[in-house]
């Protein structure tokens, strides 16, 4: 398990040493290459900022006003039908719209129910079942200045829902 967690650290180590060294050995001007790439990257920041402000204000208002909690509580019959704790519905609703919000809520949930309880295990799997899809769509399209998102929003949200249902199913089958 310890090896699993530290795997990305070793990969980072390998990339930070390996890429410039390999480039230098192939005779590339690695320094100016790095600067050119980094300055392109920083220009991206300016391009994504407007989309991030739009997304964060809408999600922030929806979450911090308590409207999200109420919406999730309205899904209580669904929670009962699925046989999951109502808290899981809040996590599922938060997952596609707020990455830090979902992670914070997961921490609260693990603390309240215990990380090895049925609820704690399911919550962990739900957190990993999909990414913050609405944020990623806004970020990726925002970075190229595209505001027309075609079918990506419904597709990504439905995929998140599929991930949630798969999490509930696999935890039930595995008796977790």
């Amino acid at each position, binding site marked *: 398990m310890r090896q699993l967690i530290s795997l990305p650290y070793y990969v980072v180590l390998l990339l930070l040493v390996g890429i410039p060294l390999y480039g230098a050995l192939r005779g590339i001007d690695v320094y100016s290459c790095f600067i050119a790439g980094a300055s392109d990257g920083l220009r991206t920041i300016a391009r994504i900022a407007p989309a*991030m402000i739009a997304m*964060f204000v809408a999600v922030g208002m929806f979450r911090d006003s308590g409207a999200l909690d109420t919406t999730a509580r309205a899904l209580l019959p669904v929670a009962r039908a699925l046989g999951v704790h109502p808290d899981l519905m809040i996590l599922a609703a938060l997952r596609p719209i707020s990455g830090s919000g979902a992670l914070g809520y997961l921490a609260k949930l693990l603390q309240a129910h215990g990380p*090895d309880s049925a609820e*704690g295990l399911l919550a962990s799997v739900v*957190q990993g079942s999909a990414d913050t899809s609405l944020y990623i769509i806004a970020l990726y399209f925002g970075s190229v200045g595209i505001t027309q998102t075609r*079918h*990506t929003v419904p597709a990504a949200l439905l995929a998140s829902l599929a991930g949630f249902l798969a999490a509930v199913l696999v935890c039930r089958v595995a008796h977790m």
Partner: protein
Amino acid sequence: MMGIVWVAMLATGTIWAAVVRGPASVAAMAISSAKEAVQLCLALAGSIGLWSGMARIAQQAGLTAALASGIRPLIGPLFPGLGPKSKSMPLIASSMAANLLGLGMAATPLGLAAMQQLAAENHTHAGPTDAMCTFAIITASSLTLVPTTIISLRAEMGSADPAAVVGATVFATSCSTAAAVILDLALRKRGRKDQ
């Protein structure tokens, strides 16, 4: 659709806050969220700068192309619009590989670079191309083999077996990714007609 979701969340949240917490709370909440967004951008600037620089070296040295030719048989069919000469494929492959390895902070700059390359290669559509949509939807569904953040959090919370959820998580996220691919294929034609 993004517009509808955005307006719905913003209007519901704002009216809710005004009714439940009083109109005075609204401005402070909105501004603090906007500030959070800019703080995130600044926090991202360092890692985006670093990994975009590294990605450029890897590109010049032919490393991303080598990775892409390894992964192309797997992901190529998802991007029928990209020819063998497309410079987007190496970046798409690198971003996906970084996500699979749990390197979120490297995956994002690579993903954004891939989007920019896809945009640069797009001479026909006014809006996003099929490839851009497919790539964004797959990334949004999350690709991961090792959910490192979750394992660390579980360990911190005193779990007896923090990594117990790895298998189930990989199953669940595979399902969401499979659903993403199917939904993309099913919905992309409809989206194209709307243009």
